[in-house]
């Protein structure tokens, strides 16, 4: 007789554990450190205190708590400015030291993946110039854009494995008086949010337990050099990245699954700028409609510039074709800030988004008319010249 019950009991105890020794490739930490020993570059260490998380093959990754150098994102700062504002706001609320630099350029990877008007040497030099600037400031880089994050990981691989490229980039940096410095870890801001999610939850003032959400993990976060993405045994049984999902669960949100979870958002880099019919069709038909039909969420949360842009902005035109759209989209940083009581317009800057946020905001008890009137009042002071800029203090009034 088959011992069904014994087998079932055993299955209940079964837990997926990764063994880093069985990882299919070498650990980049060892390779980066070896090159430091060989005198090829310096390594900027993750400042203490840091939080350790687990990545795809069970290796450990250090996430800095503070003393962070915020490598901003073109698309976030340019078109969704509440995205990065929320990251800074959370840092301030948690009393953490950070630096918002002006000695920073874009990683230029959006353009590179769109137009290929660059090459490996230029892309690595741009990355290493930014890393050198971070090191000079004494703050540790934290990367806001998923594409910058993915591209910098790619760049790290190339620099590790090609002495020729390393020396070429070293010479370019030398010309401007900069050293070759590789950060010990390449860290995405959403990894920091993930790492501090319990601190965020401790300060949560808005109840989100009635909220159903779907998430979209950014391709350049977990597919590009995917070994360096956060995985956790308790999230999806350790079989998909835990990023965003773990944060939302910590905030008490019901995270719903859907069948096209792995699919891209349709951004396409060049498509979103010059062939948007593709981006719109893909975002609506493969993501938004599938989520609506299978999960009926109140909100869609993602963690990258291109994903927020595509999934948010693509729904308007689809309405004209009677498609099943109308799902508000924001970043995990905006949602986390909102949960901590951030102002929806002064901090989250939701008026830069296309989708209608009101039903969601009202469901969590926010008076949207009042909030908008407060923002308009602040703007009126800027228009009249009574105030020059909206300040952090104004946000918490």
């Amino acid at each position: 007789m088959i011992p069904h019950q014994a087998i079932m009991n055993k299955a209940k105890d079964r837990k997926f554990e990764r063994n880093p020794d069985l990882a299919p490739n070498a650990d980049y930490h060892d390779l980066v450190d070896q090159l430091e020993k060989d005198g090829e570059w310096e390594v900027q260490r993750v400042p203490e205190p840091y939080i350790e998380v687990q990545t795809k093959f069970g290796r450990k990754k250090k996430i800095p708590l503070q003393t962070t150098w915020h490598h901003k994102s073109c698309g976030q700062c340019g078109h969704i400015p509440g995205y990065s504002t929320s990251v800074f706001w959370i840092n301030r609320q948690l009393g953490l030291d950070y630096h918002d630099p002006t000695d920073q350029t874009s990683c230029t990877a959006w353009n590179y993946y769109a137009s290929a008007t660059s090459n490996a040497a230029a892309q690595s030099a741009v990355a290493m110039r930014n890393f050198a600037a971070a090191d000079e400031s004494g703050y540790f880089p934290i990367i806001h854009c998923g594409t910058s994050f993915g591209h910098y990981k790619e760049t790290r691989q190339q620099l590790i494995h090609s002495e020729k490229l390393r020396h070429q980039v070293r010479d370019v940096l030398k010309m401007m008086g900069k050293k070759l410095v590789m950060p010990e870890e390449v860290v995405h801001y959403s990894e920091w949010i993930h790492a501090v999610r319990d601190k965020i939850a401790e300060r949560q003032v808005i109840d989100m337990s009635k909220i159903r959400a779907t998430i979209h993990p950014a391709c350049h976060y977990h597919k590009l050099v995917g070994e360096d993405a956060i995985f956790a045994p308790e999230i999806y049984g350790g079989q998909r990245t835990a990023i965003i999902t773990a944060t939302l669960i910590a905030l008490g949100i019901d995270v719903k699954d859907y069948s096209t979870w792995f699919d891209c958002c349709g951004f396409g880099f060049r498509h979103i700028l010059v062939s948007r019919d593709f981006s719109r069709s893909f975002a609506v038909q493969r993501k938004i409609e599938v989520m609506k039909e299978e999960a009926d969420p109140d909100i869609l949360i993602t963690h990258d510039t291109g994903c927020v842009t595509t999934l948010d902005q693509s729904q308007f035109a689809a309405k004209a074709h009677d498609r099943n759209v109308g799902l508000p989209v924001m970043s995990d940083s905006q949602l986390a800030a909102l949960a901590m009581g951030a102002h929806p317009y002064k901090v989250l800057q939701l008026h830069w988004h296309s989708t209608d946020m009101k039903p969601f905001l009202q469901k969590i008890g926010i008076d949207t008319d009042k909030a908008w009137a407060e923002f308009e009042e602040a703007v009126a002071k800027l228009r009249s010249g009574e105030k020059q800029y909206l300040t952090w203090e104004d946000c918490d009034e």
Partner: protein
Amino acid sequence: MGLDLSGKQYRKVPYEEKEALLEEVKEDLRFGDYMYGCYDCGICVAACPSARFYDFSPRKIAQSVAREDVDLFYVFLNDSVWDCSQCFSCDRCPRQNSPGGLITLMREVAVKHGLASAQEALEGYGRVVYKIMSTGTQVSPDMLQANAFPDWGPHVKDIAENLDVWRKALPPETLHTTEASWKVDEKTLIELYLIWHATGVMDMIKEVDEGLFMILQDVMEERLEDAGYDVTFD
């Protein structure tokens, strides 16, 4: 109409010319890490967003390169690579290839040689290249104009009309810009221009868009001269 894989459309291009372009892709330092051969399994296609909406197949591209089918490679180099979304969903390839990475290399070669198909693919894209190369940030707030993004909704018009004041209504001081995504130091921009100069990127721009090259050359050379660098892009 689907993609014509016969190669007839490029029969006038000498075989040696096509072969040299394939060799150039293979010589890139990243090639060995992007292409280990191909099982022809189609796993990349199953994950590929572009394959759902275009007559596009990373499997066929990988096969053409792995089998060194020069004529077929040339068809893809011209008529396929710009359909790729560069999402790297295909990095789940069981042979450890990166078809998306291979496509990046192919695009680079197409741009470097100023292929007509690359010029056509980048038409209308010049202002973005100009923005990133000259300001160090890519999509600036002032690009949000209703005529540029009519499909995004009426909020784009609101943003354009209120741009100056809404940028001032951002608490981070670095974001009070309209022509760049954030405030970038002059010294930082000079360093970026030195990178473009030292790595040959401006030569690539010259091949695909001479007009854009000249505008960028003017802006960069003047700034570099002011900063005390005697650098020319000719």
